[in-house]
């Protein structure tokens, strides 16, 4: 079985869900090996093994936390040169995409970003991506070197495939580029009890129509166990943090259910959510373009419709 390298996204050994999705996809292509940078190997290896990582390559060097992106590039490139994998999978966030780009350049290999699916093909992995604000579906494959592929969250449901992984410490030589951009401080975003936007099965978003009062959106989100999203208009108005912005230049989400409340549905917003499986919209304006996408829409005042929805959910569950 060819080896597939998977770059692990984690916080101190707590592995994030998109990594489990990458391991699940990697098993379609070969035998997954996880690359874990930073501390936390003991707890992470247990999780990684549960999702099918036969090997865990550990690089626990201070450079990984002190400098931006490039230490990961040195580590991944050198591990790839030693192991000769059939593909390298990374998460599609800003860090993952930059790491992928530089690794591909150094390995003289091809790169595909933002895959929403990866399958085995006769000439290596075949990817599927969305293009032009998700109006197109594109399939692609790498034609040179080891395919380097970044994958968006929710591309696959994580499936356990327990093995006991071999944990191997890897020494990496960090070049001058690795210490080029220093991290002065790092503030982890408070997530509270709600799921993370990119990973959530359900997202409830508010827009201009909430008029600054996101409590109504949060109530629905909590009733459904959902993440909270916001349109650019709501974020620009300062009603909700930018890290929750759904759209072309914010976070692109693809949950099982997307609830858009008080959102008109400008093209930039639709680009960030229209691959959601089920879409529900609540808006006063019957002509709002969001209704064109909705599987169920309510033309009405969200301050009346949403509290009634929450009461109904509580009633049905009691």
């Amino acid at each position, binding site marked *: 079985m060819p080896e597939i390298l998977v770059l692990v996204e984690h916080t101190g050994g707590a592995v994030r869900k998109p990594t489990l999705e990458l391991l699940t996809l990697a098993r379609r292509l070969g035998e997954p090996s996880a690359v874990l940078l930073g501390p936390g190997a003991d707890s992470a290896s247990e999780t990684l093994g549960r999702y099918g990582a036969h090997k865990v390559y550990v690089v626990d060097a201070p450079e990984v936390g002190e400098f931006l992106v490039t230490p990961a590039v040195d580590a991944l490139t050198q591990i790839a040169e030693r192991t000769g994998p059939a593909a390298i999978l990374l998460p599609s966030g800003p860090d993952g995409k930059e790491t992928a780009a*530089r690794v591909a350049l150094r390995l003289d290999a091809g790169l595909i970003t933002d895959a929403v699916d990866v399958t085995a093909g006769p000439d290596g992995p075949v990817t599927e991506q969305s293009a032009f604000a998700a109006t197109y579906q594109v399939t692609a494959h790498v034609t040179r070197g080891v395919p380097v592929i970044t994958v968006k969250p929710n591309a696959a449901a994580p499936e356990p495939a327990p093995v006991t992984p071999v944990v191997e410490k890897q020494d990496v030589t960090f070049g001058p580029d690795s210490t080029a951009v220093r991290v002065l401080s790092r503030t982890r975003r408070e997530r509270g009890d709600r799921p993370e936007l990119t990973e959530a099965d359900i997202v409830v978003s508010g827009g201009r129509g909430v008029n600054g009062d996101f409590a109504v959106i949060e109530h629905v989100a909590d009733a459904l166990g959902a993440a909270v999203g916001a349109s650019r208009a709501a974020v620009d108005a300062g009603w909700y943090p930018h890290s929750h912005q759904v759209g*072309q230049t914010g976070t692109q989400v693809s949950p099982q259910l997307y609830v858009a409340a008080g959102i008109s549905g400008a093209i930039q917003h639709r680009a960030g959510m229209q691959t959601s499986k089920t879409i529900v919209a609540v808006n006063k304006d*019957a002509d709002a373009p969001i209704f064109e996408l909705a599987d169920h829409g309510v033309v009405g005042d969200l301050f009346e419709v949403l509290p009634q929805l929450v009461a109904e959910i509580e009633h049905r569950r009691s």
Partner: protein
Amino acid sequence: MKIVVCVKHVPDAAADRAFTEDCTTDRASVDSLLSELDEYAVEQALRIAESGDADAEICYLTVGPDDARDALRKALAMGGDSAIHVSDDDIEGSDAFGTSLVLARAIERHGFDLVLCGMASTDGTMGVVPAMLAERLRVPAVTHLEELTVEDGAVSGRREGDGASVRVQGALPAVVSVTDRSGDARYPSFKGIMAAKKKPVETLDLADLGIDPAQVGFSGARSAVGATARRPPRTQGEIVVDDGAGGAALAAFLTAKKFI
């Protein structure tokens, strides 16, 4: 300080964009313009020049067919000094590797202290060219900045990365990319539009940059698109007008779909 701003001429993101039969972007069917996300990079370059760096010299750089000049003219109308247009038939079909190679050679030829880019183009949306440029130019990549300061030979700023807000700093020369949160881009004034017509635009081809055509275009691309298909438009579901029971109807729908 020599600032090079990389800009791209892209199909209007608000229009109905399409692919051609050879799976490249259909540039004929919709109007193209300066990529909205690049305007933020132009804005930051102008703010650096205005904030007291009297020696700042801003040059815009683009790679693309003849009409890509329009993107340069728009940027020059916002401000700045000159522009470089790299155009060559062999560049058509380039991926991020080919594009970043052409940009890097043109930047080296011009000279630079700071390269500014948008976070991604609004057509390809990969967002990897700034990192590739830094790798090729062997300089720091200070990317995805929402706020930036250039002083004392270094660039520092705030980056909203994966799950964390990070303050970073790198020495010049460097490649910097900025997000749409970095500060609203200005509109060109009438005076700016008139002045832009007189600003020099240099045109270069692959030979001027010493690039072998095999390294770019379709022949240099490292991935291939197998197929492009328009996603079937979503079919509109039931839209009800709230008569006092809209929330209950929504709950019934979500129950039927097993979300409740």
